[in-house]
């Protein structure tokens, strides 16, 4: 009789435990940005310029099923191949006063393995903050490496930057930033 009641108790409580287990949040997790290539593209009727930085730092913290990510890069680390242009870029973007570009976004932890990530980005740059909604990043996963690529459709107006000009012609407003990053969970 005792065995029967024990079996019945287990049978009744099993669905409860199963339900609780299904609602339990994913374990806390930390992500680290291992490699990065960020490239801005600047257009002018006489010049096409790409400036690249490999110096971005990034971290993600997952808690209660939500992951907050921060990517930061120093403005001065972007290299366009011309030191004078780079110094002018730093001046124009107020990089001496605001030396760090910060990008924050939040993702559901359950979505981190998706082939496509739809991100709402909050970008701090040149003393201003811009939001970019539904920026799509492609993701390929090899082992623990999450390789993410995409383009942030930034513009100089978004950050109240006076567009530099050459021969009185200003650069184009659009300055897309190509993103190529590899993240690893710790």
């Amino acid at each position, binding site marked *: 009789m005792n065995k029967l009641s024990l079996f019945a108790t287990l049978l009744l409580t099993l669905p409860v435990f199963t339900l609780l287990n299904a609602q339990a949040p994913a374990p806390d997790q930390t992500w680290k940005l291992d490699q990065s290539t960020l490239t801005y593209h600047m*257009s002018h009727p006489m010049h096409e310029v790409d400036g690249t930085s490999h110096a971005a730092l990034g971290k993600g913290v997952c808690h209660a099923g939500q992951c907050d990510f921060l990517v*930061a890069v120093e403005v001065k680390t972007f290299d366009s191949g*011309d030191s004078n242009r780079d110094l002018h870029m730093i001046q124009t973007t*107020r990089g001496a006063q605001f030396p*760090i570009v*910060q990008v924050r976004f939040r993702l559901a932890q359950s979505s981190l393995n998706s082939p496509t990530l739809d991100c709402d980005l909050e970008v*701090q740059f040149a003393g201003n903050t811009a939001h*970019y909604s539904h920026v799509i990043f492609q993701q390929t996963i090899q082992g623990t490496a999450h390789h993410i690529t995409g383009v942030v*459709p930034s513009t100089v107006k978004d950050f109240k930057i006076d567009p530099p000009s050459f021969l009185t012609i200003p650069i184009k407003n659009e300055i897309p930033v190509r993103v190529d990053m590899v993240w690893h969970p710790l």
Partner: protein
Amino acid sequence: MVAKAESSALPDAPLPAVAASAEIDSTETISSSSSFHTYLQNQPPSNGPSLSDLGLTAADTEGSAARQALMDRRTHMLKIHQRLGLITVIPVAAACISAAGAPPEKGNYSDTTSRDIHVALGATAVLMYAATASYAIRAPRVSHEPARGGVKWHKYLIYIHTPGMVLTPILGAMAYNQISSGQKVHGIASAHAGVAAATAASYGAAILAVSWPIHLKF
């Protein structure tokens, strides 16, 4: 499968040390990007990683208004340098063209009009060159790293056109005096045209160096 990011509850990020609060309108929408808005953020993040979590120190993240002012001044002076440099092309080219009429024709040493015009244009070119150079020389230096790209060649060419801009008027004055005294141009003064041509060519090359590569796309 598309994973939707959730950013509505994102924590506010810290402002750089010197906030541009005066120039940021917290309610203004200024971008052509439909999803963009600018606002003042003055709250530190309540959760999520911080810059210090990335290993960045306060020295890395704090900006300097004084350094920004220095860079602004540098850019302002170099813009004037660029503008004056381009304008100086006009008297340099005019002096080169007027050089054709500068030598005495068929032993006529008394008609000095063409020569005087050449002298005036040459002097204007040298004075404007000096003004142009002064803005580059007086612009504050903000980096001690070696120059890379076109500006490196722009600087190398200084070693040709600066001595040329000094020598050309000296040799020109010597040639002028020799012609005025009824002599044929001789000696080192005969190098005036050659030095002037090399100077003008290197000056043009210096302009091209900082404009290259040019991709015309209208």
